[in-house]
């Protein structure tokens, strides 16, 4: 056993109903760190090329980082990965809560699940004991109900990752929930769990994580607890949760509206209220275990109209959900947005993909591309809150038009045809999150090139780097970010800025860090993160090593996709983003596809990837010490 890490990976085969421990040495952890690094390593090594995402040969990986379970605040997120049924490529999503802490305390750094069970099962992990148990009675339960029922099976209350009915029915954007408000939302990983007939993973750990310098980690925690309240981004999150950005996105004309046709929504100030309260409902801020920011909102529900936790609180929506069911569907009815959020959490569906798939079908109907009884009966149109819940239920149950929509917008558009592909707003099959690249081109580079499809959490966003005095510029000098770049630039300066930020983000993903706790989105400075790794592991660790680990993780994810036959043709933004988002000339101009293609090529070159194919070069893989990836690429 090492310090910071456990040196143990739990391997479970659901087909065989076996569990075993794989031991790993110090060199392995120093090379891959954890989180995203371990996900890439296991997916590339364990999942054969062209495997069926729903088949037994797909692997589902849950990985923590070397600071998980220590005093450092915000470092206990879990990176979940598998071949994605949404993108047919590398799939990845991160989730907060307490599950990562429990896994680490149980004695494991990661869990790799392979095979498929024939009947519903759940995985029970209590320290050294890991059992595959029957989940017959849990099948069909909501995620919250699953958690409550499993709590009774353990001596110590476990942390639970579970899927809802959407995952069981293989909705391609089903998510995995941890508790009632933390989602490994993206990529359809809940459907992979459903295909494995794995309802839940309950874990309870009782052993302290040993570190090299616990007092240094405690000092970091107490410094953070003292100072975060005076930090602008952290105070914003504490004040208004993630919804705090709605006003500024509206002002900048990049608040996704009407399926990204527009960038401003008349009801913006109404939906922005959800960050600070919801009518007469009492609001409580909640957060991940060990984090003082508590950026999540919950609302007291007195009348039983919405499922709640044991204290009577329902999870409030975060920004992505508010925009996906609000501005992007032209809905400012707060009850509908809250209910849609709770429904998706309970059913286990990604709110971003669900909202975007609804936006797609509403636009198809508006343009006369679909004529469907369900849509007619529900009066499915932008601005009609009454159609949202019934459509979500139909998706989860794969009933009526829901059967088509459960496939996600890309596949649905292929089925509908008639030019509807233009209105499916996705990259690689994964629907766009609620950030419009027409006001921040770096986000566009991220959407285009992310190996797991469109994602807003691949790097810091451009506006924090447009002026010398901006918080991003003040805090990111150790990353080599020294000159501001205009938000709409799309030349080599923007690619360089994006790449430096993406490498920092990937390093943080290898650590299982929450982006809201560290610069440029939070308080903790770059050197303190490096000091945290040193204190946890005892390594004479450097930022350079962290960036190398990040680079390895990115190369492995890319190699996974290249091996699937995916190339630069998938690194493209939806055609709509080439058009302006204007209403009366107030919107944003479109992004020129030729300029974006050139930026993507520059991105490959800066990464030392082949500029024609986007494949990591042999020299780069050798330089990073992962030449084995080249052998995987050659089959």
């Amino acid at each position, binding site marked *: 056993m090492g310090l910071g890490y456990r040196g143990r990976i739990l391997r479970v085969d659901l087909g065989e109903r076996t569990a075993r421990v794989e031991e790993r040495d110090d060199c392995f952890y120093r090379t891959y760190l954890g989180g995203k690094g371990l996900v890439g390593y296991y997916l590339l090594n364990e999942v054969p090329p062209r495997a069926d995402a729903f088949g037994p040969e797909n692997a589902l990986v849950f990985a923590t980082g070397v600071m998980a379970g220590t005093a450092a605040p915000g470092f206990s997120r879990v990176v979940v990965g598998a071949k994605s049924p949404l993108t047919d490529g590398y799939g990845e999503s991160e989730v907060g809560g307490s599950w990562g802490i429990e896994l680490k305390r149980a004695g494991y750094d990661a869990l790799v699940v392979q095979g498929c069970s024939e009947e519903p099962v759940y995985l029970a992990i209590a320290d050294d004991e890991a059992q595959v148990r029957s989940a017959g009675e849990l099948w069909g339960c909501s995620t919250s109900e699953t958690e409550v029922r499993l709590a009774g099976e353990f001596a110590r209350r476990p942390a639970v990752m579970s899927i809802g009915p959407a995952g069981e029915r293989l909705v391609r954007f089903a998510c995995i929930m941890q508790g009632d408000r933390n989602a490994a939302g993206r990529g359809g990983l809940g459907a992979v769990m459903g295909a494995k007939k794995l309802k839940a993973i309950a874990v309870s750990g009782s052993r302290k994580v040993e570190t090299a310098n616990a007092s240094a980690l405690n000092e970091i925690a107490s410094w953070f607890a003292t100072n975060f309240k005076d930090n602008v981004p952290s105070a914003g999150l504490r*004040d208004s949760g993630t919804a*705090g950005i709605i*006003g500024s996105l509206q*002002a900048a004309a990049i608040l996704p509206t009407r399926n990204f046709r527009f960038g401003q929504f008349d009801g913006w100030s109404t939906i922005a209220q959800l960050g600070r309260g919801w009518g007469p409902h009492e609001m409580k801020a909640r957060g991940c275990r060990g984090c003082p920011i508590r950026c999540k909102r919950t609302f007291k529900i007195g009348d039983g109209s919405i499922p709640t936790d044991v204290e009577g609180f329902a999870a409030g929506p975060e920004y992505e959900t508010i925009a996906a069911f609000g501005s992007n569907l032209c809905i400012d009815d707060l009850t509908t947005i809250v209910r849609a959020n709770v429904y998706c959490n309970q059913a286990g569906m990604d709110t971003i993909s669900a909202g975007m798939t609804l936006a797609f079908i509403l636009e198809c109907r508006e343009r006369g591309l679909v004529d469907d009884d369900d849509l007619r009966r529900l009066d499915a149109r932008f601005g009609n809150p009454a159609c949202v819940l019934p459509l979500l239920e139909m998706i989860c149950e794969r009933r009526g038009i829901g059967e088509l929509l459960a496939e996600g917008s890309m596949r649905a558009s292929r089925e509908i045809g008639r030019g509807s592909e233009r209105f499916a707003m996705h990259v690689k099959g994964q629907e766009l999150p609620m950030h419009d690249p027409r006001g921040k081109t770096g986000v566009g580079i991220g959407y285009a090139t992310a190996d797991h499809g469109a994602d807003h959490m691949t790097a*810091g966003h451009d506006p*924090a780097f447009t002026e*010398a005095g*901006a*918080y991003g*510029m003040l805090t990111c000098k150790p990353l080599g970010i020294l000159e501001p770049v205009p938000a709409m630039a799309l030349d080599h300066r923007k690619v360089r800025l994006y790449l430096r930020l993406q490498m920092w983000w990937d390093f943080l993903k290898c650590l299982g860090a929450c982006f809201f706790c560290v610069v440029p989105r939070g308080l903790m400075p770059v050197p303190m993160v490096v000091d945290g790794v040193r204190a946890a592991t005892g390594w004479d660790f450097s930022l350079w090593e962290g960036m190398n680990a990040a680079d390895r993780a990115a190369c492995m994810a890319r190699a996974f996709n290249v091996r699937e036959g995916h190339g630069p043709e998938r690194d493209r933004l939806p055609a709509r983003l080439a058009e302006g988002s204007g209403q009366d000339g107030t919107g944003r101009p479109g992004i020129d596809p030729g300029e974006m293609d050139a930026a993507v090529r520059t991105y490959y070159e800066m990464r030392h990837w082949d500029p024609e194919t986007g494949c990591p070069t042999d020299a780069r893989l050798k330089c990073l010490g992962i030449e084995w990836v080249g052998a995987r690429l050659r089959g």
Partner: protein
Amino acid sequence: MKVRVRLLNGLHVYERLKRRVVEVEADGSTVREILASAGLPRGQACIAVVGDTAVGMDYRPRPGEEVCVYPPNDGG
């Protein structure tokens, strides 16, 4: 007559301000100048809104108006 500048999304914690609303005499200054004189360094706020309308940092608030300012937006 004064103008009110409301500091949103965390800007109120800035060291030298520590308040959510800055009140200043409407002397024709721009939002940028008002914030600088109140102690908010350049670059910390980048978006200004009056009512439902984005006005920009070079806007000169009129007497009695309330301006909301936000830090640079980022990922949710």
